[in-house]
């Protein structure tokens, strides 16, 4: 499948969701918005879990629903991970996982399943009952239970929201890795920007039941016309390649559009791709390349656009090759340096501020 055509409206007491869009079915698409923006309703509609949805949903010209037809959830071939683990309480972990496995048309192979259960640390839990597991373990089982069915489309509704911080940081890297390996398209609902920065390729921004922006994550995070670039913790997301490791200083060298970046990190596989998140407040601007500075990462960039935020700050959208960086500086500095779109300047990023 390549895209899902959603043209629906859902009416609730004091809330209307109205969405008319194509959602790309490749990689991970995140639906992002504050609580009450309708993101869960949108996801549940796609799964066929809301029966008073008006309008139509089509996947590659196969009608999932329209005015006259409604394909039941169990026939849509979607996997769904709920916010609460919702394991079947009367079945142990193994039987919970088998439930979907036995009903799936084209499940994972036994070898794949073993690998995944090992990776997720579920093997030792197989004979336990759900109430004998911690919240994090339960959610891992729920995710595994869905993955073994090898669905055509994987839907996740804030799967980490009910977990503690420790458990979140356990599962998040696993999800990142799994989404990369599986060829299943994923739609991931969350209101936590950090999760999305780590997981998503595409982003659908939802506000009060309407889509206010949609596109590649690097564009959505940095577009100065959208709220994300103006948030207190605004950040840009860039894809880099590992090229070198400096044993002496414990620094990994990454390449971004032919330019080197240094980050403090244990050695990484050479040639592998690493996604970096850089906060706008950690990037400053210089007109010339500074010679005596502690900042290792100085990148030549072109100012794409700039927009004032409040009385004292300015957000800058910076281009470097295909990538986009976001910088936040004071309005005073922007005026003193006389920055305007099209200028070639240098972005300075503190090495210590880059999270791998």
């Amino acid at each position, binding site marked *: 499948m390549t895209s899902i055509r959603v043209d629906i409206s859902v009416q609730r007491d004091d809330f209307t969701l109205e969405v008319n869009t194509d959602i790309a079915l490749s990689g991970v698409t995140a639906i992002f918005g504050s609580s009450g923006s309708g993101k869960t309703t949108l996801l549940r509609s796609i799964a066929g879990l809301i029966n008073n949805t008006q309008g139509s949903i089509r996947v590659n010209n196969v009608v999932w629903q329209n005015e006259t037809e409604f394909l039941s959830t*169990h026939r849509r071939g979607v996997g769904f991970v709920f916010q609460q683990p919702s394991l079947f309480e009367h079945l142990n972990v193994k039987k919970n996982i088998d*439930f979907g496995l036995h009903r799936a048309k084209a499940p994972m192979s036994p070898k794949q399943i073993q690998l995944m259960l090992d990776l997720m640390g579920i093997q030792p839990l197989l004979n336990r009952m759900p109430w004998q597991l911690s919240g994090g373990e339960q959610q891992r089982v729920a995710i595994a239970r869905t993955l073994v069915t090898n669905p055509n489309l994987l839907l996740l509704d804030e799967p980490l929201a009910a977990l503690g911080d420790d458990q979140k940081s356990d599962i998040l890297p696993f999800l990142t890795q799994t989404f990369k390996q599986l060829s299943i398209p994923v739609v991931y609902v969350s209101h936590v920007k950090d999760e999305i920065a780590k997981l998503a390729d595409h982003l659908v921004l939802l506000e009060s039941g309407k889509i206010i922006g949609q596109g590649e994550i690097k564009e959505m995070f940095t577009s100065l016309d959208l709220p994300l670039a103006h948030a207190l913790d605004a950040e840009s997301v860039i894809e880099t390649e590992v090229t070198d490791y400096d044993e002496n200083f414990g620094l990994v060298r990454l390449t971004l559009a032919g330019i080197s970046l240094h980050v403090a990190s244990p050695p990484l596989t050479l040639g592998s791709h690493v996604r970096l998140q850089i906060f706008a407040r950690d990037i400053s601007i210089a007109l010339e390349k500074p010679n005596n500075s502690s900042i290792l990462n100085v990148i030549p960039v072109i100012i794409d656009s700039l927009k004032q935020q409040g009385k004292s700050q300015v957000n800058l959208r910076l281009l470097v090759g295909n990538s986009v960086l976001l910088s936040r500086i004071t309005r005073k500095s922007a005026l003193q340096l006389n920055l305007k779109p099209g200028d070639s300047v240098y972005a300075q990023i503190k090495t210590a501020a880059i999270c791998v």
Partner: protein
Amino acid sequence: MILDQQDLTALWVTLKLASISTLLLLVLGTPLAWWLARSRWRFKLVIEALIALPLILPPSVLGFYLLLALGPNGPIGGVVDFLGGPPLAFSFSGLVIGSVFYSLPFVVQPLQNGFSSLGRRPLEVAATLGASPLDQFFSVAIPMAKSSFITAGVLGFAHTLGEFGVVLMIGGNIPGSTQVASIAIYDHVETLEYAQAHALAGCLLLLSFVMLLLVYGANRRYSVVTP
């Protein structure tokens, strides 16, 4: 042996009646309870009130209407008569039909509560894992509501076991056919046969107690009587 042949027969009729009625009630009550738990129909409360009626109605009132309904001119008896069936009033079949009515709330209410407390989530999960609605019902709803089924079965059985008024009205007191233990006890007391009344009453007391013990033992995590 204090119990004579007639007492043993009465006990046997009682157990047979309670077993058959409970079985029928579980078969009929399950879909009814499922519908009540899931339906958002505005007038559902009318059905719920009707089902709950036997809880408060004097058994003689219920028995009186059932007698009319089961009679050859009544709606149920008439249809059976028209189809060439046997007369229902003062027969064992009539007792079964009566029992199903008067024990209905004791089976439907625990089941309805059980299904309601499941919520929609387990069924939604099952649907996203590829289970059809019927599959969801049998592989998720029923096993997860197991304790409610035990409660419903025991309450239905026990209530049928102890019924007196309705049975007297629609079944009469025909030994070997419609004379149940509770009525036999009444007869013994009437004729001052206290020893036999004791024996039979003791049997019922013991039976009821052992049944509840078994249920509480097998089902420690739950309470038998649901609100």
